[in-house]
C-alpha cells in the first residue's frame, strides 16, 4: 500500500485510536517520509528521527484528517519541513557541511535485489549522493520531491508553501547547477 491508497475510512479508524489502522498508515507512508528525510538530511539517524517526529505529530493530529487529500498534503509538507529543520540543527550543531552519510549504504534496500542490481545501484547511489550534496536545502527539497518522489508542481508548491512559479524556478536553477557540475567536472 502507498500513500495514495490510504482511504478515508482508514484515517477515521486511526483517529478513533485504532492502532492497527495507524500501523497500516505508517506502513503506507513511512517509506516516503524516510526517503525524503534521507535525501534532505543526508544522515540516517536524522532520517529516523524525522520519521519518528512526523508520525507522533500525525497521531496527535489525526482527527484533522478526515479526507485523504488533506492527509497527503500534510504528510508531504511536514516530512520536508521536519527534515529541513533537523538538517539545519545538525549543521549549526556541528558547524559543518552535512555530507551524505556512508552508513546509509548499509540501510535495507527495498525489494529483492540481485547482484547485478546491487552493483548498478551502488554506482548510481554514489552519483546521486554527489548530485544531491551539491544543492542547497531549498533546491534539494524541490529536486527530491520532483525527481525521486514524482510529485507534480502543484503538490510540491503545496508541500513547501510556495507558488508554482517559484517551484519551477528552483527546479530550473537546481538542474542548471547539476548540469554545470556533471558536465564540467565529469561527475559521471
Amino acid at each position, binding site marked *: 500500500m502507498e500513500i495514495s491508497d490510504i482511504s478515508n475510512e482508514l484515517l477515521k479508524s486511526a483517529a478513533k485510536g485504532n492502532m492497527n489502522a495507524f500501523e497500516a498508515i505508517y506502513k503506507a507512508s513511512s517509506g516516503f517520509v524516510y526517503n525524503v528525510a534521507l535525501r534532505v538530511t543526508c544522515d540516517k539517524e536524522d532520517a529516523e528521527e524525522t520519521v519518528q517526529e512526523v508520525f507522533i505529530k500525525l497521531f496527535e493530529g489525526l482527527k484533522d484528517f478526515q479526507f485523504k487529500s488533506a492527509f497527503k498534503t500534510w504528510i508531504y509538507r511536514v516530512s520536508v519541513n521536519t527534515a529541513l529543520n533537523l538538517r539545519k540543527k545538525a549543521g549549526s550543531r556541528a558547524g559543518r557541511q552535512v555530507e551524505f552519510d556512508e552508513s546509509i549504504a548499509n540501510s535495507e534496500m527495498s525489494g529483492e535485489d540481485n547482484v547485478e542490481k546491487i552493483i548498478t545501484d551502488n554506482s548510481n547511489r554514489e552519483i546521486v549522493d554527489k548530485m544531491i550534496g551539491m544543492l542547497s536545502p531549498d533546491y534539494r527539497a524541490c529536486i527530491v520531491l520532483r525527481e*525521486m518522489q514524482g510529485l507534480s508542481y502543484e503538490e510540491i508548491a503545496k508541500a513547501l508553501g510556495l507558488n508554482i512559479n517559484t517551484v519551477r524556478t528552483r527546479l530550473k536553477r537546481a538542474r542548471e547547477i547539476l548540469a554545470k557540475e*556533471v558536465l564540467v567536472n565529469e561527475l559521471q
Partner: protein
Amino acid sequence: MNCNKIRDIIITDYVDNELDGRTREEIELHLSSCSACRTFKAALVSYISEPLRSAPVFTPPVALWYKVRSEIERLEDEKPVFIGTIISSLFPKWVNIAAMASLVVITSLAGNILAHNIWVKASQQSVASASAEESDSTALGELADIPSEQVAKIYSNIIGG
C-alpha cells in the same frame, strides 16, 4: 520561440510532464529540426533526470515502527485523563448528547428553584422590615396627640440629654 526559450521549457515543464498538449507539440516540432536543442534535452535526461529518477529507494528499519509506537504510548500515558472522557467513551454518541441535554434542563430547573427561594426570602424580609418601619411611624404618630409645647419640651430634653 527561439532556442533559449525552448530550453527554459525543456529543463522544467517538458521533462516534468507539466505541459499542455499544444505546447508539447510545439517543442517536439522544434526538437525535430534543431540538433543543438536535441543534444541539450538528451544530456539533461541522461545525466540528470535518469540517475535521480532511478535512485535506490530505502526501506525504513523495521524497529523504527516499534520505536514510534512505544513513544506514542508513552505520550498517551502521560496525558491527564478526565472522568468525562472516560464516561463519554463508554456510551454511544446519542446517549452522551441526551445526558448533556438532561444536565442542561436539570441545571436550569435547579437555578429557577433557587432563584424563586431567594426571591421569596427577600420578599418576606422586606415585608418584615416594612412592618417594623410602620410600627416606628405609629409610635411617632402618637406624638401628634400630645400638645405642641410638650412635644417641643420632649425634643429639647432628648437633644439636650
